[in-house]
């Protein structure tokens, strides 16, 4: 069977390689053989010692054959056929496919020095399956039973080029997987173009958000004076944790008055001028009246007064947590302080 097979392949080649119809059915049965031929042909250095005799014979013959094969369409046709075939012939010839995969594994183990080639071999299949799935998802063309036609990629320069391209594609697909985790809502999309689409949309939306937020900041502050002491911002960063303690805001009143008391220290610490002190005194007077402090009130008023201290109170942190629950996204407190700081400064100056 093997010699016949090889001859028919040669016959196909001699036709110019374009017309695939003739050996089509033949290929469908035997493309796993072709796959092995291909892999073994590429694995020039060592023939697989673990192979059966039949395979070995086939490889020996295939090797000579492959060397003479200048028509790489043949090559790629094989690849495509095999890659698609797993899906098609799951029930039928699972065994042969297992043999193929086993063989690839053996190749991997054997020729460690030729890591590139073996990787390419495996990546060939992977990228092929990726690509074929891509084609399926992205293009509405139905993959016909004569799947050899699917990707008869003609005119690719040499073996090394195509293999390098396969490697490159595998790398790209790895990155795409990582991107899927990063970009929200990308889990269902498998095709490269679709993924790129999502990435583009996400980057654009983020950039627009930056624009919008900078505009908002520009309008909020009549002057760009962020009078923030670098020293204490750094301290804030150091002392703040990325994860907040569980919110226990029951002790609202005590927390509230604690902060009022801590204001004096904070004011002196942050180096604000006396004008702010008077404003804070005013705040204190007005705020001290209500005993039960609802959360909203705490949000709006407390953060005016709250200045970061060198030592974080657990109560302070609880308050911030309340703020976050109200609306902010991230566990990042410092900016609220900086914002309140600058706002209070503004009020003083204007």
């Amino acid at each position, binding site marked *: 069977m093997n010699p016949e097979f090889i001859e028919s392949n040669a016959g196909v080649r001699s036709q110019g390689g374009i017309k695939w119809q003739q050996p089509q059915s033949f290929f469908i049965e035997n493309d796993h053989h072709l796959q092995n031929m291909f892999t073994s042909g590429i694995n020039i250095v060592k023939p697989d010692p673990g192979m059966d005799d039949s395979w070995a014979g086939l490889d020996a013959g295939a090797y000579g054959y492959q060397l003479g094969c200048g028509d790489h369409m043949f090559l790629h046709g094989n690849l495509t056929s095999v890659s698609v075939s797993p899906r098609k012939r799951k029930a039928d010839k699972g065994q042969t496919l297992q043999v193929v995969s086993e063989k690839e594994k053996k190749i991997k183990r054997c020729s460690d020095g030729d890591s590139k080639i073996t990787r390419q071999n495996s990546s060939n299949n992977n990228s092929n399956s990726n690509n074929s799935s891509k084609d399926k998802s992205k293009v509405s063309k139905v993959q016909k039973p004569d799947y050899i036609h699917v990707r008869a990629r003609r005119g690719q320069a040499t073996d090394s080029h195509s293999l390098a391209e396969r490697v490159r594609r595998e790398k*790209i697909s790895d990155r795409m997987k990582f991107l899927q985790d990063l*970009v929200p809502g990308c889990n269902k999309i498998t095709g490269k173009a679709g993924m790129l689409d999502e990435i*583009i949309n996400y980057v654009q939306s*983020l950039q627009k958000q930056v624009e919008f937020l900078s505009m908002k*900041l520009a309008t909020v*502050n009549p002057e760009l004076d962020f009078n923030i002491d670098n020293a204490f911002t750094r301290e804030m960063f150091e002392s703040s944790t990325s994860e907040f303690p569980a919110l226990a805001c029951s002790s609202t009143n005590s927390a509230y008055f604690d902060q009022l008391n801590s204001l004096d220290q904070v004011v002196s610490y942050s180096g604000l001028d006396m004008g702010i002190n008077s404003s804070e005194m005013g705040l204190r007077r007005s705020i001290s009246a209500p005993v039960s402090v609802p959360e909203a009130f705490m949000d709006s008023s407390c953060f005016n007064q709250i200045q970061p201290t060198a030592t974080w109170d657990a109560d302070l942190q609880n308050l911030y947590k309340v703020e976050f629950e109200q609306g902010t996204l991230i566990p990042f407190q410092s900016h609220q302080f900086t914002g309140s700081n600058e706002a209070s400064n503004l009020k003083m100056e204007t």
Partner: protein
Amino acid sequence: MHTSSKLTKEFTKKWVKGLQICCSSKKNMDVLERKKKIKLCADIALASAKNATTSWSIALISEAKKEGENEILVDNLLGPESPFKQQKTIPLMSACHKRVRSKKILKRSCSVGQRMKKMGPPKSNLAIYIAKTLVKKRTQVLQRLVPGGESMDEFSLIKEALDYILSLRVQVDVMRSLAHAAEVSNQSDPNVFG
């Protein structure tokens, strides 16, 4: 996300510093100017927080440096690293451009021949052709979006885009919290002060 919190800290520090420099130089800017300054500071801070590890940050900074007035700001923000960056960028970008250009010419010459041959078995190749052009178009768009993306091949473009997305997220979060805090304090103050 340990790295992102670190990045956040770096970014906010540098941004605040940049804004201070900005506002000390000029007073009485109109809204658009302010917005531009804020955004510029944010971008530069983000890029410098990366410490020239990624090429998009390098590209961003070199772009910002092109305008004369920003140079002082940029230099101040970057600190001692900036001269190295400048030396690195120019040869890097030109080499990249040359490489990309020669690649494009080669591709074009190859693809013309390929396209002629491809008309043989039409359907399958048409599918591939369509898929490829789709991907190509999108990569072009992405190249335009990511700073410094024009001189990158596809693989590194995706890597850069990944990194850029992460940093953009950090930037957006920081700016949003600041804006929110400012808004909150603005709302409350008039109520209290009458």
